[in-house]
């Protein structure tokens, strides 16, 4: 893949005309995907894909796009040349872009993991063996994911990692299930069996008769995977400078000076994340960008366009200004004391389908899902029938936040819309008082 990219990049750059610059962004993967249901294989297959995004620049005019590569060098050169010619033909008719900004100080980097993964077919066979007798459903994604950047100023960046992510659920009945995942860079059959075995032991808890609660306010413990859903929603539009300046962020009250709980310190920690440290405009991201400090808004993700538009420095954020390596600082509550600290209330392992009831006040609704339990005096009593919560972030991580766990979980994003994600979050669990449930 690396040779494919740098070779086609050289070809594009060699074909530039006087006064032209080019930014090139490469995304590729060789993935095995195996879909499971009822402990058997539903859809297995392989996907080999590569694409080249090109931003062709002449002065302050530019035109961009993305083209699929086929992996055959002569055919790719022909297709990419035609694509560049299309972009070039558009350039003269375009207005100058006052918000164009790209890295003018070449900074080449290389990050490749040396490990290799076994054949996905063999991994699938191990999964089938390990989940025998269980109602196992989920997806195994395994293989190499690559990202690359090159420009006509001589910068070259490369990122490649073979990784796997097995996201799965074990079902007891109807919607009662335990969700788990086994993900990383180095596959270990014993770790796989241990992870499935751990989930199977928790399954006993969801086989108990379920409890239905009335709408009202309850004490809640959100496990890291549940909190991931909250920050997943916020990631759409809460942390980018454009959304701050156009008042479309749901953190509007924080912009006005309100604060969340002092224990909330949030950063985009690229250095500890799972993805590349460079972006499509060639900027190298700082190791970390602090977004919230002790409950107060203190920073934003700034894409190159926003940097130019609002006249502030960029921190290399993607065009969407969404975080890709979000990290919430730990608290003081030992994880193994979370049940006791919850005392009586809801232990929520997973949330689902969050959205805003009112964006301006960051009022969020969503559902409990998978292993969510009713707890009395620190003991799990029953799985909970699904409930809808509807409360503000300012309550949940502000006035009503009782504490965050000392331990945090590294949650690798198993998203694969278009391509496999390299995003991640590192989050603790959160103990919350009086969270509102409505349906």
């Amino acid at each position, binding site marked *: 893949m690396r040779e494919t990219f740098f070779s086609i990049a050289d070809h594009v750059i060699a074909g530039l005309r006087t006064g032209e610059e080019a930014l090139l962004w490469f995304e590729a993967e060789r*993935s095995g*995907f195996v*879909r499971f*249901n009822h402990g*058997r294989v*539903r*859809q*297995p*297959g*392989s*996907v*080999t*894909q*590569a694409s080249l995004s090109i931003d062709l620049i002449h002065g302050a005019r530019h*035109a*961009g*796009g*993305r083209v*699929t590569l*086929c*992996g*055959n060098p002569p*055919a790719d050169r022909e297709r990419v040349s035609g*694509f560049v010619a299309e*972009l070039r033909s*558009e350039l003269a008719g*375009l*207005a100058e*872009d006052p918000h*164009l900004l790209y890295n003018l100080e070449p900074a080449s980097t290389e990050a490749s993991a040396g490990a290799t993964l076994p054949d996905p077919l063999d991994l699938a066979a191990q999964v*089938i063996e390990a989940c025998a007798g269980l109602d196992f459903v*989920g*997806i195994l994604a395994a293989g190499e994911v690559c990202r690359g950047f090159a420009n006509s100023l001589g910068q070259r960046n490369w990122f490649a990692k073979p990784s796997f992510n097995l996201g*799965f*659920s074990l*079902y007891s009945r109807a*919607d009662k299930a335990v969700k788990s995942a086994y993900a990383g860079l180095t596959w270990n059959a014993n770790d796989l069996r241990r992870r499935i075995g751990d989930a199977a032991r928790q399954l006993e808890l969801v086989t108990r008769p379920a409890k239905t609660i009335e709408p009202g306010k309850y004490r809640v413990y959100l496990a890291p995977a549940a909190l991931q859903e909250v920050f997943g929603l916020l990631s759409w539009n809460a942390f980018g400078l454009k959304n701050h300046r*156009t*008042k*479309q962020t749901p953190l509007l*009250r924080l912009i*006005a000076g309100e604060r969340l709980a002092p224990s909330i310190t949030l950063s985009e920690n690229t250095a500890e994340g799972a993805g590349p440290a460079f972006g499509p405009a060639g900027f190298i991201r700082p190791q970390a960008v602090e977004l919230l400090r002790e409950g107060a808004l203190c920073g934003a993700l700034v894409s190159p366009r926003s940097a130019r538009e609002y006249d502030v420095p960029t921190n290399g954020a993607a065009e969407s200004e969404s975080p890709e390596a979000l990290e919430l600082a730990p608290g003081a509550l030992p994880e193994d004391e979370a049940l006791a600290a919850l005392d009586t209330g809801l232990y929520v392992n997973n949330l*689902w389908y969050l*959205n*805003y*009831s*009112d*964006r*301006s*006040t960051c009022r969020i*609704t969503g*559902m409990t*899902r998978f292993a969510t339990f009713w707890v009395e005096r620190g003991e799990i009593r029953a799985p909970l029938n*699904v409930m*809808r919560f*509807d409360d503000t972030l300012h309550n949940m991580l502000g006035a009503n936040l009782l504490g965050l766990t000392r331990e945090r979980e590294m949650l690798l994003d198993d998203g694969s*819309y*278009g391509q496999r994600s390299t995003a991640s979050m590192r989050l603790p669990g959160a103990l919350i008082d009086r969270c509102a449930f*409505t*349906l």
Partner: protein
Amino acid sequence: MFDSLESRFAAVVPAVDFCSLRAVEQRSRVLSVRQDVVQPIRNELDVGAMVTVMHGGGLGYAATGDLSEEGLRAACAQATRWATHTARASVYDFRRLPMPHPRGEYETPVERPWESLSTGAKHELLRDWSARLKRDARIVDWEAGLWSVREDSLYLTNGGGRVRQTQHLLSPQLAVTANEGALTQTRSMRDAGESQQGGLEIIERLAIGARPERMAEEVLMLLAAPDCPDETMDLLLAPDQMMLQIHESIGHPLELDRILGDERNYAGTSFVTLDMFGSYAYGSELLNVTFDPGVTQEFASYAFDDDGSPARRTFLIERGILKRPLGGLVSRARAGIDGADGIANARAASWNRPPIDRMANLNVEPGSSSFDDMVRSVKRGIYLRTNCSWSIDDSRNKFQFGCEWGQLIENGKLTTVVKNPNYRGISATFWRSLAAVGDGSTVQVNGSPFCGKGEPNQVIRVGHASPACLFRGVDVFGSA
């Protein structure tokens, strides 16, 4: 791009029970103007193919961007290897499924091709719309855009099947956001929620050019509006909210792969079970729902799905009774549902994802009530337009939806505009409160490019045509 692909496929097709090739070429163009500044244009050319093999009872696929004979041969070998090695663990014995070898064609009728207007002329149009959205200092963001896609696909099978389909798609977008202090409100076309098939004639069909000033006025009205009250009242939904209501609480629950459990780790299951088809009262007698792939301008129209099943208009719910599920032929076979009755919903996002059960054009059929009649029949209620928030449980039952625009109905008249309107309910009972269905004059054909589902994840196009509909006694609330 597909020249000689048939001969290359014929040259490499393996000796297996069934083999298909699904090649896709998608060309897209994105133009937009934000805050009167022309944004960078974005062109895309995405080309590739998926080989699917069924052999010895197993199934396997391989997707590749390499459409050379060598590339296709490698994909066939990979797909065959997956099918062979997982056959014994397959959730279904694919030897029991006779796959079709269809022949046919489909192309969206286009009156005014995208290319009939230069990029500069289209930018001028967008500049005009953008400028007319900025009507007041409180308007803090505004944008106008056009997203055009031409998607060509060629489906070939080892039994001589050949289906060529071309879709021309257009997604116009207008959005305007206003702020005052701690309050921000938006009026929009809801993330390309009025997408249709066709060419630039869609701009006139949807009267986009007449909208900017009205949208700007409405967003300023919302800034000054009181919060939506919290009470149980009648609910009149405009087609651009019916779209979401149909999608989330009829479309997804009826997808067979959810009912069969394939989606339980991600998108979820369904409160609908196989024994409900034929007898379950999904809604009131006024509810008639069709899968209709033949509405010319609707966003997800096609002649064949991605497993080669022919598609035609079919009732899923008739006079409130649940009749048929949505799904492809694999799921129908797994579920023991006989007959290819036109329901053809095995669809893939592109060449790099396998077909799964996806709703396409899913429509509520018009009734007999005029809009004014429905308003007049309401003593205390609310009229909601344009979805802005959606959330539903993993069985597709408990939902909460929010809209950009609310207007109270009091004693048979539309009165006060309210902001932040939301409502909540339960799918299994909500549709039974359907009290009136708008006539043809209230119908709008909406569509979205953004329905997410599946493992690996897939985002796909859907269409939802619907009249305005009236529901009795719904829990409505605001942000107070």
